[in-house]
């Protein structure tokens, strides 16, 4: 008697703890080996690009929080930078430093989540992620102090930031910066040389530097493959040209290297913040715009609606997940004619098939974890 074998299709998701949101993965298997991988997305598609076409430039800022909700600051920043580029607005120095500090705090919070959840995928069920939530919590407290919100922050404004930090913010931040190195040492002790994590992630999902570039990957996915490309260095925005930091890169391009790059970036963000709390200058936090309205507490903010000149811009920054870019086309009206978000989570998924073929189902979970997707940003 002969035993017939046929390819077997496994559905993972949309509701599954390791898909990091409503994301569905269809794997075709030959025994344990993956022969084809297809992703099904769109469960969270809100068509922000269409909605933004009938809202003013200022009204669109909250949308950018809700794309990458684990890193709202960088979403805000990329968008307001695109509008500023379109209108030719110069941002005051203090606002630039505040933007950089908030973006780096957000990077720590986001990478802490990413590495914690990745450890979850490797089997360290919930313990590392709880450790990291503890530290993320303190960063969210700082955000709450600065702008009143914790997750969807809506802090950046066209021409600056919504309000200056209160006087007790900097001491509180310094306190946190003293505490974080101990925490990071703890993570590194627990996770970096962890036998299970190494066994699960070394040599899996390997991408060569050429492949990483060809697949348009960015962020830790690209740097994990050994390409030293960081927009903070290559095209400095905010105040990144005034601080000293290094770009972390991996050597083998596997899942483990991406994880190590994220852990190393925590240290670099800390380094930037330590310099920033000492160097931040005084001054206004919002540019004076032509028809700016003055709020009761004496602060100038961008008017609700204005008409930028005709033209198109593409502005991009380095978010925790990679290059987040905003492509805006203005026809001279009060709302953008076209509003496109180049989201790193979505584009980083293009290499998922390449990485998964030949791996096992258990590896597919770890590979997906190493991409670090936020489904709000994949679907927009």
């Amino acid at each position: 008697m002969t035993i017939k074998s046929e390819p077997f299709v496994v559905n993972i998701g949309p509701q599954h703890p390791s898909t990091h949101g409503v994301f569905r993965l269809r794997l075709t298997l030959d025994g344990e080996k993956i022969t084809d991988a297809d992703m099904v997305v769109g469960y969270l598609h809100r068509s922000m690009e269409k909605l933004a076409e009938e809202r003013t430039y200022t009204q669109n800022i909250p949308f950018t929080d809700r794309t990458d909700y684990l890193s709202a600051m960088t979403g805000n920043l990329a968008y307001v930078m695109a509008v500023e580029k379109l209108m030719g607005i110069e941002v005051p120095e203090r606002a630039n430093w505040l933007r950089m500090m908030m973006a780096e705090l957000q990077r720590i919070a986001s990478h802490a989540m990413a590495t914690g959840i990745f450890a979850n995928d490797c089997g360290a069920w919930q313990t590392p992620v709880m450790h990291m939530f503890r530290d993320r919590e303190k960063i969210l407290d700082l955000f709450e102090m600065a702008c009143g919100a914790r997750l969807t922050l809506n802090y950046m404004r066209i021409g600056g930031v919504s309000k200056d930090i209160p006087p007790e913010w900097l001491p509180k931040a310094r306190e946190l910066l003293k505490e974080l190195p101990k925490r990071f040492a703890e993570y590194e002790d627990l996770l970096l040389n962890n036998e299970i994590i190494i066994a699960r992630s070394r040599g899996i999902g390997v991408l060569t530097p050429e492949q990483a570039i060809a697949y348009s990957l960015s962020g830790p996915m690209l740097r994990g493959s050994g390409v030293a490309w960081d927009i903070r260095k290559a095209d400095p925005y905010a105040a990144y040209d005034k601080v000293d930091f290094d770009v972390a890169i991996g050597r083998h391009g596997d899942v483990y290297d991406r994880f190590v790059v994220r852990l190393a970036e925590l240290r670099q963000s800390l380094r930037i913040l330590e310099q920033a709390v000492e160097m931040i200058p005084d001054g206004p936090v919002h540019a004076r715009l032509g028809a700016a309205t003055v709020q009761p507490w004496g602060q100038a903010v961008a008017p609700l609606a204005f008409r930028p000149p005709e033209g198109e811009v593409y502005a991009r920054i380095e978010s925790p997940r990679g290059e987040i870019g905003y492509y805006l086309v203005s026809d001279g009206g009060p709302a953008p004619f076209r509003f496109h978000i180049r989201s790193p989570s979505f584009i980083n998924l293009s290499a998922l098939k390449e990485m998964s073929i030949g791996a096992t189902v258990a590896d597919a979970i770890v590979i997906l974890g190493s991409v670090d997707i936020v489904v709000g940003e994949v679907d927009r």
Partner: protein
Amino acid sequence: MTKQLTGLEVAHRIEERFPGSVEEAVPEYLMIHAEKLVEVLTWMRDDEELWFKFLSSLTGVDWIDWFEVVYHLESFKHNHAIAMKVRTWDRDKPAVPSVTGVWPGAHFQEREAYDLFGIVFKGHPDLRRIFLWEGFAGWPLRKDYLNLPGGEMPGLERFPGEPGVELSGRGTE
């Protein structure tokens, strides 16, 4: 700092190599004729002086009279960037060549542009809708696809709060 190459700088080099391929060259972008697109972009990827190995973003724009596909290219080696465009005038069956052969990273982004604009990318290996389901009626990001039933409401041609428009309702108190 990343140097933003203007369309004019690159246009004459492309025109030398591929005569008649440049449709429009302005400081912001460079527009290529659709039939020469893949050739030109492949050359731009492999040329040592341009080295555009990274496709940063690909997206469509509906200009009502025509559709455009915009490519933002970046070179890590020389740290410069450029915006390229291609245009299609056919509103019923818009089609441009696919660049998945040049950059595999275009795969999902072309599927996205097809899903939301209905632009067909000829030569794409697996052109299906990505966010919306097969059978969804219409192409949401086209300008004639309105999300308010009945179209724009009278009186909303200008936004409330714009200079010269009085705020009405609760805002005035």
